[in-house]
């Protein structure tokens, strides 16, 4: 497991998305972590010290795993860049056709309709 800085992590994540275009999956996991061992954490808690929590982000394409740890200072910038990476690569999903208000033949739109079209009637 390679621990990287946020920017190299994003670069490597981009490469993972590129590599798995034809085959494979990309898993990204977020977890809250203090990056300290359990024993140390317990000691700090009983000593009354404030534990600084970070957001641990891991990514894997089942061949390689990378990770990075975000603090309160970095996370906003990372969040924006991460969103950009996702938007650029997650384009294999189906686009919803707005004209489907009339054509209710496509069943797949139902879950989408429930959440999005609250006021518009489903023709």
């Amino acid at each position, binding site marked *: 497991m390679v621990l990287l800085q946020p920017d190299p992590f994003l670069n490597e994540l981009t490469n993972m998305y590129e590599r798995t275009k034809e085959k494979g999956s*990309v898993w990204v996991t977020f977890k809250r972590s203090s990056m300290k061992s359990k024993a140390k954490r317990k000691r700090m808690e009983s000593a009354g010290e404030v534990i600084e929590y970070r957001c641990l982000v891991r990514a894997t394409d089942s061949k390689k795993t990378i990770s990075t740890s975000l603090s309160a200072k970095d996370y906003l910038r990372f969040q924006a860049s991460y969103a950009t990476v996702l938007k650029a690569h997650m384009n294999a999903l189906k686009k919803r056709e707005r004209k489907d208000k009339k054509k209710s033949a496509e069943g797949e739109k139902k879950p989408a309709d429930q959440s999005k079209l609250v006021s518009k009637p489903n023709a």
Partner: protein
Amino acid sequence: MVYIDSWDDFVERSVQIFRDDPHSTRYVMKYRHCDGKLVLKVTDNRVCVKYKTDQAQDVKKMEKLNNIFFGLMVRGPDVDIAEVTGKEPAEQQVSKKGRGRRQ
């Protein structure tokens, strides 16, 4: 594995799971470009909720959820969730947008 049909329900339940156990809760996202499928999972190793989709519009919703989780995980489970604009005060948000436009 529980698959939730409603997005809003999924978001509410996953935030609840996180608030109940912020230390063991993790948020997992799996994306398969070849199948055009996206699956989200939130679990604390006891309770698990999942959401699967093949719709492009869910990417935007997932981004908002990502932002919610980033905020919760870094700042703590007691943070108030502002679904759209994030947890920063309005001025900081505006300046961030400003920087983006100039670029």
